[in-house]
């Protein structure tokens, strides 16, 4: 298993290193959109928009975080089916789920520092203090893990139905909706991302961390990861029964 992780990590590092400019250009375009939004708020919103600017900055960053982690697996699978490499990954004795979990974790390890750097720049521009408590970063990591779980649901669908470009594009906007769901108490376990966003917003507003709600957020993260893995396993078997793994 350690060797499997080393291999997938090496692949992830090599791909990001080799195609860094490509990756960065998409990030820069996201940056530009962000600056335009915040600039718009600051210019036309007036001084009373203070908290709204912060919420918009955090919302945009959380959205970016989700996009980076949630869609990644599906695009990877689509590319690998297209190139024809997917079957070799299914021939790993550890199974495709383990291969892709390690690959996604490797990508997360690689992108986390970059996203962290982007967050500092973005938050500075929006006037948010960058000296945030550790709990903020833990929640940020939990949000990424939960998005990864949702990514496995989409990845499983992609394994089965292949060309899910339209679904992925739709999901980019659908996830914005999650940010605005108000999930109180134990219901937070079942609603993706909203509790993470609510907690991060509270921390930015200087409120103390709600321990119980934080627990629900952790449980919700685990739940969505498990749902993601289960759905992926379901489609993995279904695609082997239908025999259309390598068809694109």
């Amino acid at each position, binding site marked *: *298993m*350690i*060797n*499997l*992780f*080393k*291999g*997938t990590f*090496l*692949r992830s590092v*090599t*791909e990001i290193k*080799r*195609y860094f400019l490509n990756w960065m250009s998409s990030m820069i375009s996201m940056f530009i959109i962000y600056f335009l939004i915040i600039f718009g708020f600051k210019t036309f919103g007036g001084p009373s928009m203070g908290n709204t600017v912060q919420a918009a900055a955090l919302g945009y960053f959380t959205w970016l975080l989700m996009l980076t982690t949630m869609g990644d697996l599906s695009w990877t699978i689509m590319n690998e089916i297209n*190139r*024809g*490499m*997917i*079957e*070799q*990954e*299914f*021939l*790993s*004795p*550890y*199974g495709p789920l383990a*291969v892709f979990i390690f690959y996604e974790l490797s990508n997360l390890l690689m992108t986390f520092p970059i996203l962290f750097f982007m967050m500092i720049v973005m938050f500075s521009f929006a006037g948010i203090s960058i000296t945030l408590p550790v709990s903020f970063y833990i929640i940020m990591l939990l949000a990424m893990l939960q998005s990864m779980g949702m990514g496995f649901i989409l990845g499983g669908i992609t394994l089965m139905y292949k060309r899910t470009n339209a679904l992925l594009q739709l999901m980019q906007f659908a996830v914005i909706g999650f940010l605005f769901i108000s999930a109180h108490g134990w219901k937070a376990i079942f609603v993706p991302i909203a509790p993470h966003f609510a907690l991060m917003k509270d921390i930015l507003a200087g409120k103390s961390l709600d321990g119980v709600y934080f627990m629900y957020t952790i449980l919700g993260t685990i739940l969505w990861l498990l749902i993601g893995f289960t759905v992926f396993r379901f489609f993995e*078997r279904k695609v*082997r*029964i*239908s*025999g259309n*793994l*390598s068809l694109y």
Partner: protein
Amino acid sequence: MLKVENLKKTYKSKKRVVEAVKNISFTTNAGEVFALLGPNGAGKSTTIKSILGLVVPDEGEIYINEINARKDRKKALFMMSAVLEGNRNIHWRLSVKENFLYFGALKGLGGKRLKERMLEVSELLGIEDKLNTIAGNLSRGYQQRLAIAIAILPDTPLILLDEPTLGLDVESAIEIRKIIKHLAEQGKTVLLSTHDMNLVEAVSDRVLIISDGKVVTFGTTKELKEMFKAKSYKIVFEKKPSVEIIDKLSEMVILEEKGNGDFSISVNFSTSSHTLYDIFEVLKEEKPQIKSIESEDPNFEEIFLRIIRGDKND
């Protein structure tokens, strides 16, 4: 080594139902090159993918060294590796070395052992000087060598090769033949699926011919050749017989006129209802001078075609 028992697979979709594999059984031995032959759509790839677990069969069992591959896929996958049809075995954007490290890791290899194996197999496949080349920049022949190198990297006792010479030039195809032979000499079992009859004839110990999802025949290449031996004859004449004779013969056998003035008739008694005596009966009328009568040994390609057409049963 590998035992396939009563394998069945039907693909069902809303539009149609296809019985890809109807009831296939066979056993291979260690150190053997076992060829799986059949026309397109015969069920070769489904059989290979079922063994690998890429397709879940409806019925049947698959054992690799006594391990039930359907029940314990993980253990079975540690014992086999494959090169699948086409360019679907390598990561085009990684270098040759990175491909080794990634696919080796997928099989659980790492550290010193992986590096040692990488050097061994890259040398064996003649790609040791390409380690830093991006796989996508290699020629088709070298890409296939890399795919085979990756498959033999984990040193599994069973290696499945699906169309390993497809799209390769003659030189590369010959190299692949040598490698397959070498693998068998090392005690590996190679299950080969191909349309390349030269490859089958050159490397296979035994051949299983399937058509329409069923086993048509099975045996060594020698046995299959024997099956058709002396069933074909070629009668060469000093000069062309009369038109009347030719007309009569053409209704019975295949006629062939050569550029050097010779005229010959080919008689394949496995496909013809006539006997050599019938032919002589016609020839007796004119008694044309016979230069030679040769028994023709068909090549493996012809044998394959005859078997697929069902000639064997005649």
